[in-house]
């Protein structure tokens, strides 16, 4: 089983998913992230899926769960780098990933985090839904 490394840059946690994760590794990542958000008091989590070739309902649910959990812990989650083929497939699969915020790439994800971190939550819900 691979453990996905979590990097801390300033008060942002960065996870870059490489390769094809089995379901257990996905769950482990979910738990690790929640722990690290609490331990570090991070204000943002960026999950980079540039290298991910498919997102099925299991991984999709993990992304939504992480976003929901970190929001409760007062951190915003942004998923960056979703490939077009993956996005098209997710739409067809019927996964809406509601509430999940996304950006084209890492740089834009960080900018989005900076822009909205201090903004009131109501404004956030309109972005990237």
């Amino acid at each position, binding site marked *: 089983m691979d453990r996905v490394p979590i990097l801390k840059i300033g008060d942002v946690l960065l996870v870059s998913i490489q390769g*094809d*994760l*089995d*379901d*257990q590794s996905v769950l482990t990542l979910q738990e690790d992230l929640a722990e690290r958000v609490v331990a570090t008091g991070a204000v943002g989590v960026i999950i980079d899926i540039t290298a991910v*070739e*498919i*997102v*099925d*309902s*299991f991984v*999709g*649910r993990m992304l939504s769960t992480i976003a929901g959990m970190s929001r409760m812990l007062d951190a915003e989650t942004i998923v960056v780098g979703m*490939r*077009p*083929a*993956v996005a*098209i*497939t997710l739409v*067809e*699969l*019927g*996964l809406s990933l509601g509430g999940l915020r996304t950006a084209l790439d890492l740089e834009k994800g960080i900018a989005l985090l900076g822009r909205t971190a201090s903004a009131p939550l109501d404004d956030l819900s309109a972005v990237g839904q």
Partner: protein
Amino acid sequence: MEQLSITSNDDVVIVRQKVRAHAIDLGLSLVDQTKVVTAASELARNTLVHAGGGQACIEVVQNGMRRGLRLVFSDNGPGISDLDLALTDGWSSGGGLGLGLSGSRRLVDEFTLDSDPGRGTVVTVTKWTR
């Protein structure tokens, strides 16, 4: 034709990888590859989670001019008593999103679900080249 057994999370990963390799060989477009691999992932996981394991069979088929990738997932698990319900978006007997079956049906060109309650389930999907 390739026969794989599904008894662990690792096997689900292997199914995804083998299906991808066959889809590339067959010349499916990137989007179609992604769709069929995603469907395979959902169905392999169902086999593992809901039936405690089973088999996946990957096969290249031909229909007149067209070639396609056919995947058959079979198990001897508890089966599904209400097929329509199982195929409903959002219906799950456990805590799932209930999108595995209904969603993968939308990702492929042909989809059949056969189940004998108490005996097992067979899901057959086909993706044709364009």
